């Protein structure tokens, strides 16, 4: 079975989740999206994905969640070898400076988006970090060229000197 690269969105307010999904739907063709309303649920989803040998390419996470905080979840995942390479983006209105610094230093945070966000900004960030993921994980960039940053992927293919069919 083909493995997929998933985007996992973690947000406990339904309306906000709904809005985020609508904005990043354009990526779902190549990056299926999963959702969770708490860190606990997120871990369950990740377990399921792991069973089917799927990857998590991007974690798009709010900070204020019931139970475990978003930043703590990201730090924990970053310490697991399997998810070290996953891209981590905080999308939040309530992370204080300390928590943000923690996320940058210990969770290797890739980007921070504050609420309310603009559609273009969110899409641009997702496109950018997913492109990074493809390049870093040395995936074949061809299938993703139309929805990610085609130029960068092309450049990478040229530089790495490898070209192959899907």
């Amino acid at each position, binding site marked *: 079975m083909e493995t997929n690269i998933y985007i996992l969105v973690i947000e406990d307010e339904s309306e906000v989740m709904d809005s985020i999904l609508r904005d990043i739907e354009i990526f779902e063709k190549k990056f299926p999206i999963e959702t969770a309303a708490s860190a606990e649920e997120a871990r369950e989803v990740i377990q399921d994905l792991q069973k089917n040998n799927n990857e998590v390419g991007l974690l798009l996470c709010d900070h204020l969640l019931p139970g475990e905080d978003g930043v703590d979840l990201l730090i924990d995942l970053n310490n697991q070898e399997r998810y070290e390479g996953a891209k981590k983006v905080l999308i939040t*209105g309530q992370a204080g400076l300390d928590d943000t610094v923690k996320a940058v230093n210990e969770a290797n945070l890739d980007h921070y988006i504050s609420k309310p966000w603009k559609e273009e900004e969110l899409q641009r960030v997702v496109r950018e970090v997913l492109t990074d993921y493809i390049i870093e994980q040395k995936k074949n960039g061809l299938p993703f060229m139309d929805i990610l940053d085609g130029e960068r992927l092309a450049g990478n293919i040229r530089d790495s000197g490898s070209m192959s069919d899907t």
Partner: protein
Amino acid sequence: MKEKSPIFADSDSALQTIQNLILESDDIQAHEIEIKEGEILFRQGSSIKDLYLLLDGEVSLLREKNKQGIHMVADTLKPGSFFGLIAFVTGNASMTTVRVDKDGHALKIRQDEFESFMEQHPDLHNQLRQLILGNLVERYRHTIDLHMEMEQLNGQLKKERNDLKKAYEELENTQNLLVHQEKMATLGQLVAGFAHEINNPTSALMRSTDSVIEQLPKLFEEQYDEARTKKLLFRCGLESRLLSSVEIRERMKEVGKRFPNVSRTTLRKLAQMPEEALAKMEDKTGRSPLNIDDLVPYFEAGRMLTNINLSSKRIGDLVKSLKSYSRQDNDSYDWIDLREGLEDTLHVLNNRLKYHEVHLYLNEIPKIYAGGGELNQVWTNIIMNACDAMEKNGTLWIGCGTGQAPAESLAGFGSKEELGQDESSPEWVWVRIEDSGPGIDGQTLQKIFEPNFTTKRQATQFGLGLGLTLSNNIVKKHGGRIIADNRKEGGASFTVYLPKMPPDAE
């Protein structure tokens, strides 16, 4: 006392010469008297008939300070000094009392025999004359010194008084500043929480609006047999409610079986449709993904308009609560129902209370004449303290009623009806706020309403520990009181008693 310097170099030698003359002449010697320590030679106010010259020993000139006979030492005289001199020269009563401090001797010459005595002993006369002059000049100089010293002391006193005044003013300013800062810190927290609260519905609102603007034009393409389907889907969208992440995931699995060829994105949308809409979709589209994707936007449009409605309403409610909560200036009093203020406060603090349980036991209470804005500050302070003390997943119990508040904790009661009312003293109203935190330790409980400058909260929020002091002041101003205690089961318990009318009210 400064050392007295000799006025004339001759003072000592004059005294010496006089001593010798006394030894030589019996007549002069007859005027020599012994003086004993403690002896009073003459009193202030008495008229003096004699002139004294101190030969050896020590005397003090004393001034009576008041009728109780307390004396102040005006001067201390050493050998070579005269006393009784001013009285002798002016004929006025003595200005001082003369007391002997050390045993010694003095020469005592009577006023009326002074002239003849001097004629008989011209040598003595010369010496005495020198000494008298010396004494007078010395006394005069002493007066000038005292005068200057007094000037200096006055100046110092004035400066100290000004310094004290300035320090007091600074203290008052600092106190005002601290109270102000405490208020600002509380306000800052409120605003931060409120801003976040507003952010969520605002985000949803903005995104939904953009989406609708995109989708709406498609609604205008009418193809008759599809019109009714579109209307149905639109209505279903309007009536839909948001599902949780877990619910969506499950439904996607179910619906995926019925619509195996659709994209994941479309599947997620189908998963949120009611059975009525799904049945219609199956019927009309023969499960072909292309047609499904044409129809789904109508459901989405309905759904988004509902989202817009709900989000707008939420914002409206929040703003209304905030206005009601902060109400007027703190000076305006009115007949208010405390329950409204409590609910406004809870609404405004919703963000802070998100992961805690709140149980309400709000019994009927009469309106009281009070400052709503001020009391909201009190509820806010107590509730915020509780939130700080509890980690996530804590519990708050809030109740109100008339008369006496229950001795037990509210958790023991199933409902506000079970709690009941104490009809015995209707002029009083109580509000109780309990939390499931660690409680307040004995030492702190003693001083809990005293100002306590601590940075007790997380790094992003801080107060100066004046919250309860201010709250206590507000409640006292209303003629009420706050009682801080611990629940038997653990956690803090605050009871606020308020009278129907504050003291001094018209």
